[in-house]
């Protein structure tokens, strides 16, 4: 009886606390990433398995909500953090991250990036990318707007994310600003009556859209691929906009204070390998930074491919977004 109690107490303790690694002699590479990357449905498990097969190490993820939360945590920890690699920042966060001086240059990586823009950065290694877009249901929306002005003039209802709490929300802010410059405020004023609501994050917005609360939702051009490949549902599509689409490039970098500097270097190289790149499309539902030799999964061929990629250089991003945010706030009625 007593033994039983002890055993169950131990089991409970095991459930609640981290168990020390069994093979303690193995070095541990700590990768900070956003939650959905490391989750069961993200690329995390496959990347971990693949890297551990060759590195003779133990890869351990530590997660934060998303890219911005990740940077916030790294800045909070300063030089006392345990991170060797931070994975999941984007171009809007790059300048801020660089200025902290907490990140180190990456090793020479021999990769032919297939990004829509030229990439040369001593610190940040891109691992995937995507375009923001409005996603809709083809069976319900027949008159698909081809730019922001047409969307604003249409009776269509949209759900967007708040730029202050969400990455896609910030992406949309930058998208309108890069397409319209000084005219962005007017575009937002015209869009005001199309916006059903503004949600804290992508999950809420997309969930409400699937429930039928709006005709369109701000997401990615790659979102329809999920429905097509995982659900055999071809009813979702992204609307191509003639202004071009705003680009999001997701990057990883090594910490200057990394305890496992060599392992971190080889992990960054591994990220650009075809092993990882082939996993990205159907787990992160983004485009891989380097198209694998075998090509993209079939469903990806049906996606819209914008002619024009809009993006602010990282160094300008901070100034632009502060200005764009105050325009957004006043246009949407505060």
């Amino acid at each position, binding site marked *: 009886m007593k033994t039983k109690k002890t055993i169950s107490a131990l089991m409970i303790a095991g*459930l*609640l*606390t*981290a168990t020390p690694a069994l093979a303690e002699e193995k070095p541990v590479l700590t990768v900070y990433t956003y*939650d*959905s990357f*490391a*989750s*069961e*449905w*993200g690329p*995390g498990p496959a990347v971990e398995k693949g890297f551990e097969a060759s590195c003779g190490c133990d890869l351990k*993820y*530590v*997660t*934060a909500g998303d890219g*911005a*939360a990740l*940077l*916030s*945590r790294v*800045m*909070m*920890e300063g030089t*006392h953090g345990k991170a060797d690699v931070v994975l999941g920042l984007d171009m809007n966060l790059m300048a*801020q991250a660089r200025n902290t001086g907490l990140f180190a240059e990456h090793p020479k990586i021999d990769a032919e990036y297939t990004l829509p823009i030229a990439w040369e950065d001593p610190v940040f290694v891109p691992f995937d990318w995507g375009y923001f877009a409005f996603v809709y249901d083809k069976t319900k929306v027949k008159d698909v707007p081809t730019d922001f002005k047409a969307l604003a003039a249409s009776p269509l*209802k949209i759900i967007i994310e*708040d730029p*202050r*709490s969400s990455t896609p929300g*910030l992406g949309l802010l930058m998208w309108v600003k890069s397409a319209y410059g000084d005219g962005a405020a007017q575009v937002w004023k015209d869009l*005001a009556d199309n*916006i*059903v*609501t*503004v*949600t*804290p*994050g992508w*999950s*809420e917005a*997309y*969930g*409400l859209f*699937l*429930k*039928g*609360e*709006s005709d369109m939702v701000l997401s990615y051009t790659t*979102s329809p691929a*999920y*429905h097509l490949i*995982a659900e055999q549902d071809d009813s979702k599509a992204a609307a191509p906009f003639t202004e071009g689409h705003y680009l999001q490039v997701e990057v990883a970098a090594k910490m200057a204070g990394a305890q496992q500097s060599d392992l971190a270097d080889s992990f960054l190289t591994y990220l650009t390998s075809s092993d990882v790149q082939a996993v990205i499309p159907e787990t992160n*539902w983004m485009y891989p930074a380097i198209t694998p030799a075998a090509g993209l999964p079939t469903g990806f061929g049906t996606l819209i491919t914008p002619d024009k990629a809009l993006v602010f250089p990282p160094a300008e991003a901070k100034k632009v977004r502060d200005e764009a*945010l105050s325009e*957004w*706030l006043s246009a*949407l*009625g*505060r």
Partner: protein
Amino acid sequence: MAERARPLSLGAAAGWLATAGLLLLTVGTTAAVLVRAGAAPRPGPGDWAAVQFTALQAAASALISAALAVPVSRALVRRIFPGRGALITLMGAPFLLPGLVAVIGILEVFGRAGWISRAIAPLGLAPLQIYGPAGIILAHVFFNLPLAVRLILQGWHDIPAERFRLAASLGFGPRDVARLLEWPMLRTTLPGTILTIFLICLTSFVVALTLGGGPRATTVELAIYQAFRFEFDPARAAMLGAVQFALCLCATLATMRFAAGAGFGAGLDRPIRIIVAQAAGARIHDVAILLMVTAFLSAPLLAVVLAGLPYLFDMPASLALAALRSLIMAVASSALALGIALALAHVALRAGPAGKLAEVTGMLSLSASPLVMGTGLFLLLRPLIDPTAVALPATVAVNAAMAVPFVLRILLPGLREIQAGYGRLSDSLGVTGWPRLRLVTLPRLRRPLGFAAGLAAALAMGDLGVIALFGDPDRATLPLEVFRLMGAYRTNVAAAGAVVLLVLSFTLFWICDRWGRNART
């Protein structure tokens, strides 16, 4: 009242320890963020607008919920009907839902594509436009009306049955009953009820923004998010967290001026049967109110269940483990919250500044920003231990702290009555300490204890807050798994996960609450 000088009793020591612990978790964590960040900026005009909006929506939600709860609880006390117990238990359910799940349930009913909009579409009517202040208040009332009903119901049960008999034998009319029994009871119960709901709505974030329809509905909590992750300015976040505490402090102090014991005196702990005179039509009035409230509360719950049910068998095995983990954590949080609250109540029942400090501290965690508290705790723990390794114990502690205000609010009125009714007798008989707790206090407190334990457990079960900040991907709780599923496009499976979450929280709540309601009084 002259107090004899005596050594610090065990109860008082525990009370002070609980006060100190809670202060560390709330004010201490905010200070930790501030110390790490350096000088705090002053609030700007945008911040004051957020404060104003936050306070206004919280006040409106609290007043409306409480005003509606009075007739509902009266109807529940006056009418005996089959299913009454079930209805009172159902009253616990909305409150226990994670915000996101509740929002989806509400929108399934009241949204643009919801049941009502679809039902009126054939009549040529436009879909309901719920987004805006009305949406926020509707959602907050959905969340908090049941809590208000239960808190006021508790007040009814604290009136000794003898008073009702006396009223009946004296031939009281409905007005006399209202003036001499109901009003004094409401005077004790309502301020605390309104305060609690006000504080809950103060930190509302997902609900306020999503149903508020845009940046017009910017709350202080959203401004904290912005400070942390848009501006990378933790000092601003801590400053805003402190503003939230200040709001809480003002509201709590203001409420304490009104709260006073009703002074019904002690009774013989007989069950209540209210057999007093009622106005003509009272029966129809009560039935109508109960029917409307039942429909209002159960429709979104039903929507959540219907949405998830078809996908129950698509759930990954990892959800079962997450559910087990959440259950253990919920029970642990509940036990801890009860212990802290009882210890705190020991001090809070005293007259004077010590009692006030304990009571205010007990409410403080309700207005703590989860984001600031989590970050501060992270900063405090980091020099001592790897925060990721203690993610779950830390979450248990934070969840317990978050539940203390509710537990305290539920226990205090009853404790005050017990103190007033039996305190002097017990003192004169020398019944103190543990025997007093066991023989005098706990048996009379069983009903609120059960309710409080259930509430604390279920709240912990549904909490998403702090665990996500500590970042251990291998030890997710059920709400976090549901949120992850939503983030990975798996909306349907997430809906099924939400049903499991709802059923588990509700079962925990039901078990504890039933134990309490089987009490003699």
